[in-house]
């Protein structure tokens, strides 16, 4: 029998159904792989007992012919999702040993559908980062290495643990969140598939909030089909999140094989950045040719406000973060550092509990919202956001079904390589992904090839609001043309 951890989620589902192996065997295989891969630091908490109990329940259900849609499928959970009774930290010292007395809506839907929880996955502290280096648990190591080199690379971020675990076969799929690119950029850096659905598609209830008007949950998986299977369980209306949309969740898996015949795919000329590596440009071109060969029409489109998305994001996101993170004050949960009065207690607690990047963003957010600056910064940024969204609306109104762009401006970079860079340089990682969050649109990153160093590169498809199905259909065309990613050998085991 081939190694059970090498199966895709869809293949594992078939194997369980055909009783070729049990949910317990499948879970055990993953728990063993996790144990051997601790050097990657993808998991910040392993929950083997819970996993085996859930797998045993799945085996019972399968035996009784009562299997649910994700019965017995072992998954990892980003540490931003509240899991009842299981430590949830957002990878910040300020949450300390927080054990939520409730379960996030997204994860509760995965368990409702029979999935098995393997543990909690590393991420940048409060999802603020693009390299997973801001986590209080330390950085995650990318399972990919440059050809002929053993230098450690970052997996991207903030969902770096999710992406690394999926690429290293430490789970069949993982939950992730995306505020400015945190699903799509790490997916691109690790040769995995990641989709950020339309704002409102997944409930944000029980997910540690970073920037509430931008945050969305989504899956990272090894194939387009696997990500479609997961999103169907994760999505859906939730009365506990007023921004979650009351629309039926389509059968995303059915859309995977739909093809792109007759679709119009836009190529935004403003995404052709000065100094963009030739390999990225060539890959983008190739992606357009693949879609054309599959029957799509390729048209050049214009999104004139693209260059303003990143600066506007770095006002809106920190502003919302400064407000959301006000709750960490040493009173109701998490860390407390005593002080001579309550204000000193707040200040010392927050100084000790937040990392550098988080403090920086809270302070920028506090500044742009402070008296006298609100109009110049926050209000202006929200107006620019309207213009960014309008750009997309014009393109879609002209009959374009989806937009094709690179996912990242480079492949994975070295651990610590950007330690001395200015914060802005790190922010540039999100240049192709952040527009999508600003406009609330769905976006998928699909592996499309390797660069000359042997590292994966991804392409991104951006869809109309609530039309994730077209992204799965077009994503599958790219996956078929590029060939399924051959994952790196388990050098860490």
């Amino acid at each position: 029998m081939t190694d059970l951890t090498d199966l895709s989620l869809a293949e594992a589902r078939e194997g369980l159904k055909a009783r070729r192996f049990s949910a317990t065997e499948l879970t055990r295989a993953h728990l063993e792989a996790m144990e051997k891969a601790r050097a990657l630091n993808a998991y910040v908490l392993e929950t083997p007992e819970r996993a085996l109990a859930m797998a045993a329940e799945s085996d019972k259900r399968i035996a009784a012919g009562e299997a649910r849609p994700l019965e017995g499928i072992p998954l990892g959970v980003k540490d931003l999702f509240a899991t009842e009774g299981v430590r949830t930290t957002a990878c910040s010292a300020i949450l300390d040993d927080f054990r939520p007395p409730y379960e996030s809506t997204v994860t509760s839907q995965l368990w409702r559908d029979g999935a098995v929880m393997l543990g909690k996955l590393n991420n940048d502290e409060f999802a603020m980062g693009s390299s997973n280096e801001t986590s209080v648990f330390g950085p995650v190591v990318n399972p990919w290495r440059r050809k002929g080199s053993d230098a450690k690379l970052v997996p991207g971020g903030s969902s770096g643990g999710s992406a690394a675990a999926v690429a290293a076969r430490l789970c069949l799929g993982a939950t992730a969140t995306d505020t400015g690119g945190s699903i799509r950029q790490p997916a691109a850096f690790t040769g995995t598939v990641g989709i950020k659905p339309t704002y409102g598609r997944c409930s944000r209830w029980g997910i540690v909030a970073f920037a509430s008007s931008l945050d969305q949950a989504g899956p990272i998986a090894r194939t387009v089909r696997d990500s479609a299977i997961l999103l169907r369980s994760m999505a859906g209306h939730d009365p506990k999140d007023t921004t979650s949309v009351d629309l039926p969740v389509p059968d995303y898996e059915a859309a995977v094989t739909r093809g792109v015949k007759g679709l119009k795919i836009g190529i935004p000329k403003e995404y052709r950045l000065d100094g963009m590596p030739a390999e990225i440009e060539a890959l983008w071109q190739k992606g357009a040719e693949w879609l054309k060969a599959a029957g799509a029409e390729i048209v050049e489109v214009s999104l004139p406000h693209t260059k303003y998305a990143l600066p506007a994001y770095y006002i809106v996101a920190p502003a919302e973060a400064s407000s959301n993170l006000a709750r960490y004050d040493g009173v109701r949960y998490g860390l407390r550092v005593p002080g001579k009065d309550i204000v000193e207690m707040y200040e010392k607690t927050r100084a000790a509990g937040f990392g550098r990047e988080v403090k920086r963003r809270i302070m920028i957010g506090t500044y742009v919202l402070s008296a006298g600056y609100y109009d110049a910064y926050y209000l202006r940024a929200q107006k620019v956001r309207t213009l960014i969204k309008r750009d997309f609306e014009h393109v879609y109104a002209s009959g374009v079904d989806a937009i094709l762009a690179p996912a990242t401006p480079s492949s994975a970079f070295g651990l610590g390589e950007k330690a001395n860079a200015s914060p802005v340089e790190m922010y540039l990682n999100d240049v192709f992904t952040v527009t999508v969050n600003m406009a609330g649109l769905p976006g998928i990153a699909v592996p499309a090839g390797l660069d000359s160093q042997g590292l994966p590169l991804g392409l991104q498809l951006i869809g109309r609001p609530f039309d994730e199905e077209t992204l799965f259909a077009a994503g599958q065309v790219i996956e078929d043309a590029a060939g399924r990613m051959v994952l790196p050998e388990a050098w860490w085991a």
Partner: protein
Amino acid sequence: MSVDEKTVRRIAHLARIAVTDEEVPHLQGELNAILDFVEQLREVDVEGVEPMTSVMPMVMKKRQDAVTDGGYPEKIVANAPMSEDNFFVVPKVVE
């Protein structure tokens, strides 16, 4: 616009984050780098543009103003660094 040391300290206080004397110049440099970067938004003509208030256009959902949850104070305070009789305990606020 750029911030001076005094402003950095004022922002830190507003954000309730204690900063040391050594941290202030670093923070000042980093905050100014970010403020420089966002400066380019000034070139955008936003005359007559409505600020975004709702990402996806939808009517705000409302529900009956009724108790739908609760009755478990011990769960609420379970993670508190300090609690007593299901109350959160903080340093004395009023003399």
